[in-house]
């Protein structure tokens, strides 16, 4: 990895080691309520100055076409560029490790709270509010895409919603059809 200078960020960019990566991504995870991406940009670009905004966008673009969580992919790819396999591992462990410990504690508390009727109301309210947040996210995405006139992509989005949300078909089947169709449509539109 050290030999392949051109495969990393530009020469001017600093190259954090595994320990620094772990701390940076743990910070991103700890601050990221809901939107982790905004914090990733803040920590990597503004606070630490490891990447320019353009470099950040460039690296993030590829993360969005790969499967899995976008920010997780970013941790793997950026970690790899800075410190090889160890860098990837450190960044992912920083991003996921502390929140998983938190989730285990939350899971233990949740299972132990079964006898307390008052908490039933709290959890039911939380769940209802979380549903509202997710609806808001979905509506924002739809609103952002619908500015243009009706395109085949809109029909594909509606068909995906019908298949996965309403009919509850297995995701494998939905993706096996929807992803190739989407890519074919994009290719046809950008000819």
């Amino acid at each position, binding site marked *: 990895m050290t030999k392949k200078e051109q*495969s990393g960020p530009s020469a001017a960019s600093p190259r954090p080691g595994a320990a620094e990566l772990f701390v940076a991504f743990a910070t991103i995870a700890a601050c990221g309520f809901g939107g982790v991406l905004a914090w990733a940009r803040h920590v990597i670009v503004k606070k630490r100055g490891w990447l320019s905004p353009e470099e950040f966008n460039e690296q993030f673009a590829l993360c969005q076409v790969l499967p899995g969580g976008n920010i997780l992919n970013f941790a*793997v790819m950026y970690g790899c560029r800075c410190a090889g396999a160890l860098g990837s591992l450190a960044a992912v462990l920083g991003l996921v490790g502390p929140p998983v410990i938190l989730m285990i504690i939350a899971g233990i508390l949740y299972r132990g709270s079964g006898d307390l009727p008052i908490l039933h109301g709290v959890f039911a*309210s939380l769940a209802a509010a979380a549903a509202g947040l*997710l609806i808001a996210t979905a509506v924002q995405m739809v609103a952002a895409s619908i500015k243009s006139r009706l395109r085949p992509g809109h029909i594909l989005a509606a068909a995906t*919603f019908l298949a*996965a949300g309403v009919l509850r078909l297995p995701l*494998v089947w939905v993706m096996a059809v*929807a992803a190739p169709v989407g890519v074919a449509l994009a*290719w046809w539109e950008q000819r």
Partner: protein
Amino acid sequence: MKDDGGIYVALIATFAMCSVIAVGGANSTVPEMHRQVVDVHAWMGDRTFSELYAIAQAAPGPNVVFTSLLGHYVAGVPGALVAIVAMCAPSCTIAYCAARLVDRFREARWRIVIQAGLVPVTIGLVASSALVVARAADHGIATVLITAASFALCYWTRIPPLLALVLAAALGLTGVV
């Protein structure tokens, strides 16, 4: 403990599959996770699923850690670890391989085409997630009203999402739900 082994295998199969075919982040895989853990394996009911989802949303961290909360409910601490590793390892391996090749493909046209092509799919999946969670969480007038209020707050104001969850939890303490 043959039975326990079966649970781990099922957890790994569920989340590894979600890991590989998810696009647009972990929120896109909520319908499939719900289908697997509630409908196929009957590890939990609708209500528990929606409450665990809410707890994960109220906690800091990337959305993928929701899988460790599901795994914990199903099979304790080992279940949590198995679930998060199954959810992360496949996609991280793919990303690692891509990182080794990225420079040659960074500006490639196929990347732009694939990215544009997946946008409608992601929108459809996130909308599906919203429908699945709302169906699981809303079982009365009170919960429907809370969902509507939380949507309105988030969509038309700039309040942080966490505040909507805190307000809802406070409302839950009063016993109206």
